[in-house]
């Protein structure tokens, strides 16, 4: 008997009898606020993410400041901002290791958790979400959903091969609980509200 068959046989032999119905999961979204931005921003900031607001009418002012302070490659995969390096057909995931700043658009945001959702289609190369030192994220404020129940109703989880919630930058508190932002992935995550 193959291991697969043995496992299924053991499950059928051992699984408890009885009535264990599959519950219907409510959306728990009876009273969402009209404007979901304040909650999104608050939770994003709590999780270590930043809201990058326009200065002097320039939505990319913070990005440009960061570029000035941290010279290095900028890889943008959004039409709204021009980076100084681009993806080639033969670019490998590890090739993004020397990117200083990545710019990418989120599919949607989640107010409950301050998360933004990326997919393989939006990232182009998945490591764009992790190997750069800093990430700038364009998010259409009209595309913020109230909670995770609503989030999992989005089509992104049924299309493509990869979807991910980023909630602030990478972090660890593995040594004595001291919180460090910028563990293995990006050191900062900055959200720019921009319809798209």
């Amino acid at each position: 008997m193959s291991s697969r068959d043995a496992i299924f046989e053991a499950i059928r032999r051992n699984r408890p009898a009885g009535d264990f119905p599959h519950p219907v999961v409510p959306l728990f979204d009876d009273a969402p606020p009209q404007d979901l931005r304040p909650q999104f921003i608050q939770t994003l900031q709590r999780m270590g993410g930043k809201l990058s607001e326009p200065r002097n009418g320039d939505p990319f002012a913070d990005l440009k400041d960061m570029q000035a302070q941290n010279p290095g490659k900028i890889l943008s995969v959004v039409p709204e901002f021009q980076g100084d390096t681009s993806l080639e057909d033969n670019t490998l995931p590890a090739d993004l290791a020397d990117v200083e700043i990545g710019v990418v658009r989120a599919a949607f945001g989640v107010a409950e958790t301050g998360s933004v959702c990326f997919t393989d289609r939006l990232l182009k190369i998945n490591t764009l979400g992790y190997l750069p030192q800093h990430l700038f994220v364009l998010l259409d404020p009209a595309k913020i959903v109230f909670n995770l129940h609503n989030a999992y109703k989005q089509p992104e989880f049924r299309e493509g091969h990869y979807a991910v919630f980023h909630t602030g930058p990478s972090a660890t508190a593995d040594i004595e609980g001291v919180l460090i932002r910028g563990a293995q992935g990006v050191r900062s995550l900055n959200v720019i509200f921009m319809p798209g």
Partner: protein
Amino acid sequence: MTEKASGITEPQPRGAVIRGNHPVDQSEAAGRFMAAPIHQKMHDARLWDLRQKRDAEMHIIPEWEDLRQLASDIKQHTLTHLDQYLEQFETNAKVNGIHVHWAKDGQEHNSIVLEILKKHGAKKLIKSKSMLTEECDFRHSMAENGISVIETDLGERIQQLDGEMPSHVVVPAVHKLRSDVAQVFSKTLGTDPDNDDVHYLTEQQRETTRPLILDADAGMTGCNFAVAETGTVVVCTNEGNADLSANTPPLHIVSMGIEKVIPRLDDLPVFVRMLSRSALGSPITQYTSHFRGPRKGGEMHIVLVDNGRTTRLGMEKFWTSLKCIRCGACMNTCPVFRRSGGLSYGATYAGPIGLILDPTFNKHKYRNLPFASTMNGSCTNVCPVKINIHEQIADWRKELASVGEIPFAKKAMMKAAGEILASPKLYRAGLPLANSTLRHLPRFMLYNRLNTWGRGREMPHAPRETFHQWYARNRAGKKKDVSE
């Protein structure tokens, strides 16, 4: 970066002494942990802090109790229809181009992975944290076969470099002080032994691990949830290391226990909403990643592992322990765990969940573990999937008694205390009235070498108050909302 040394020199207490199949003496190792006051104090405070953060999160979610009930119901439904959902998961994963393998135990898991690696000529594997691979003694097995395995989670990496098991399912090195980490890193990574600044240590790990990630032939992750309806593997992490492991090398291998499957996408938010809130008191992990298929030019494999799970499914009193989502909340709240450290259990799983899982692997070796509990029921109260942990601990005591696996001292103890200590209900109901019951227990039960809880600071005060009363008094200064 300023150089900082905490100046702390207390040596790290090591875990339980493992002697083959000999019963692990948890209380002996716990005693050594308690004899290291700086370690014990930090450990206790850190975990209690996590517990309090969890409570704060719980209070801002009005539907918290509904979510717990839903999570429990979904898991019970899935486990009682496990064949059906595993088949559905397998079918959908395959449709998406994922290779699916089945392993009846840890050894078979390891040889399947080795086979995949060999086929790709892969020698260097990076991986994120997975308790299942700990069950399988995976790293050891790979080392014997010339595969280098690098743990990428900071806590797990510290433990790997120090040759220790993880002491906690969520925070693997929580029992170590920064000075311990500085020593481990200086010996293994060549960092400054006198600098135990946490920023410095974390940055050193980032910088030394990154080249290994970029250079790896294959990446391995665990799996927190697997959605049958879509064939999706969900991984929750904070450091970004699982996504680096999965997305950087051309080959991604997922190790997953067969109990991780859930039916639908609609079920997923119930668990994602509670996992990190229960574990760390944060609304969600920094990364919640959904893998539905290999990426362009890559290959993805899933190894589904039984390793005792189907046997557990058939245990009338213990099958619901398979609902566990490994959040660690029961450990953080457990007074025994907080004071004795996870390595004192000498088993893959420590703390309350360990007490009910470990004996399913080996009744003899882990026969002492179900006694490492005050039966205060706090674990059951915080468990997001509503496992009746403390009742199962009591049931394990009875089960061990019935198969002759009750150690002598514990036999005497159980006889002395009668059913009171074996039944959490009686224990909790009886003790507040009956300080006298406790006072009339034989002296050796309180001060016996095997009874760590008599040797610790607390029990000498106990004759006139229960542990609960003592605990409430000693914790009076700290806010807490859920009964301990």
